[in-house]
């Protein structure tokens, strides 16, 4: 009754082209943003920040990036961990080479460098398709991790081989390292993620996004109607890597504070982000957030219930957790292969008809 497209009369082109044409959607997003910007910073403390909010936000951005490539352009990538590492190591090099540089520039450089690396590894995608592309990106994963481990220049030749964050400021506020205020860290990461989500939303409803989707749905047909596949696929690789690079920089600088190529950005990281977009929903911005939320919260919940409630030993609980995660993934795929975002769509469809059932 209230939630519908019909009966909304637009009087300007701007209103017609709006990102969220339905008022309720706008109010909802606004409400979420107000809670995220006002209520959460007041309540946030270290545990919640580091265990829940920061991983959720940075993985949302990573999932968003991967979703641009896999969900919108149909190219399966297993190199996410490697690209996250590129972002993190670029951020480290920038922060140590130019101390005092605003974090926003650091993140943008990380994104740009990662985009270039992504372009490079995206090159074979014109010749090969399907799972062959996935294996090509696996090459990126293993090669990049090896590179960051082997070449001392990337971690400034320190003895541990680890990279550790140095204090980084954004608009004069400390946002990285242990000493930063939790609220400041949170607001910085949140703002970056919100801006990039908006950018992603606009990319995919514009010309480039439509080209990606055309190539995803039928690449030969897309070619026949005049979409050049090579620039299209490469631009998807570049945009996706840019997002993932920024996410990687934030994983290192804002969330973890230290990183080691193989430990932090291994192949499991690639699978984790892939799980997020599959469970959240392929080809959906909202889905990236839902998936990231699910995959960050579920292990914590599982661990808490298994260890605290059932009183299992930590080792047993860890194996149990791995198993339960597998079961849940398979369960989700069977029940809703289109992901959590699809559930949200069903709710929306019901809302359009409400209060009438048909």
């Amino acid at each position: 009754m209230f939630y519908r497209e019909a009966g909304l009369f637009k009087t300007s082109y701007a209103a017609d082209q709006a990102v969220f044409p339905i008022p309720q959607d706008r109010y909802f997003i606004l409400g979420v943003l107000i809670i995220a910007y006002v209520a959460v910073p007041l309540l946030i403390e270290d545990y919640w920040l580091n265990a829940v909010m920061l991983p959720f936000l940075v993985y949302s951005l990573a999932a968003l990036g991967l979703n641009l490539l896999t969900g919108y352009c149909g190219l399966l990538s297993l190199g996410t961990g490697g690209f996250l590492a590129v972002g993190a190591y670029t951020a480290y090099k920038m922060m140590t080479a130019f101390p005092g540089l605003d974090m926003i520039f650091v993140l943008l450089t990380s994104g740009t460098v990662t985009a270039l690396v992504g372009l490079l590894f995206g090159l074979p995608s014109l010749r090969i398709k399907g799972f062959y592309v996935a294996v090509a990106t696996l090459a990126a994963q293993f090669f990049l991790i090896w590179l960051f481990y082997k070449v001392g220049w990337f971690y400034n030749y320190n003895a541990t081989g680890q990279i550790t964050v140095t204090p980084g400021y954004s608009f004069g506020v400390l946002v990285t390292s242990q000493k930063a205020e939790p609220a400041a860290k949170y607001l910085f990461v949140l703002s970056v993620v919100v801006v990039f989500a908006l950018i992603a939303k606009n990319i995919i409803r514009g010309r480039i996004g439509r080209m990606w989707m055309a190539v995803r749905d039928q690449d030969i047909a897309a070619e026949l109607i005049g979409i050049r596949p090579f620039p299209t696929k490469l631009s998807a690789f570049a945009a996706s890597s840019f997002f993932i690079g920024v996410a990687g920089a934030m994983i290192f600088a804002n969330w973890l504070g230290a990183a080691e190529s193989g430990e932090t950005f291994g192949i499991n990281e690639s699978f984790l982000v892939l799980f997020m977009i599959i469970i959240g929903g392929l080809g959906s911005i909202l889905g990236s957030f839902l998936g990231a939320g699910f995959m960050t919260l579920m292990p914590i919940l599982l661990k808490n219930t298994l260890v605290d409630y059932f009183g299992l030993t930590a080792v047993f609980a860890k194996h149990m957790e791995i198993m339960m995660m597998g079961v849940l993934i398979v369960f989700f795929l069977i029940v809703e292969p289109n992901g959590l975002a699809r559930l949200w769509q069903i709710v929306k469809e019901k809302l359009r008809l409400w209060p009438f059932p048909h």
Partner: protein
Amino acid sequence: MFFLETVISGLLAGVMYALVALGFVLIFKASGVFNFAQGVMALFAGLTLVGLMTGTIPITHLTNDALAMPGWLAIIATIAIMMVLAFAIERLILRHLVNQEHIILFMSTLGLAYVLEGAGDILWGSDVKVLDLGLPQGASDWLLDNWGLYVEKIELVAALTAGILVAVLAVFFQKTRIGRALRAVADDHQAALSVGISLRTIWVIVWSVAGVVALVAGVMWGSKSGIQFSLSLIALKALPVLILGGFESIPGAIVGGLIIGVGEKLAEVYGGPIIGGAIENWFAYMLALAFLLFRPQGLFGEKIIERV
């Protein structure tokens, strides 16, 4: 002589890769599923085999010598367990995902990999286990004395086993009724269904065969370096082999495995010192990628014909 030794040890390592790749190819051919759990299946089979041989009581990890089975009985029991597992996978997962997209099926096998990994650890414990089936260890004296070549016996056994396995599979695929049904399914699901071949039965059979191949791979790798978590990572080693040989081809898996094995060893020995060593993690992928640029469907893959 050193060069020859490198090539031989590369070839033998390649056979080990091919053993894993074989399991992938079987399942991909018959059901179009890219089964990421193949490596974990090898781990699970290995864990089960060791558990049965030492008489480990599931979940408690206590051992009771009275329950210990002799090797041959344990192998038969493990094969039976892998078959039950195949049945359960078909029943609980694949049946519900018929007609889904490739990526969904792929993800479900990733989920399966997690389940098997957790289950294997819970049932049999996660410590490194020694698998002792009485397979010969150490260097082959005869080759060392007569030819001056250092070759591990276990690798020779693996090569021999792989050869026998491939021969048996080839006969199974070409000559038996089930084998013909399998090839029909691989060719065209719908056409196979319409002539009365049951897809579900075929899938159970294929996953069982893949389970047995996983057991063989698990035994070979496990005898060499113990049964431990890293065994599940050999799946990642098999991927470049698959690309090189083509996803649908059994000879491709073998030849691809040999090429990767030799290429990797040569690169490690002659190229490694120049760029800093430890390149075996990614070299195979780069090699496969270079091949792909010239033959996108792999060496023996079916020619890709695309229509709108």
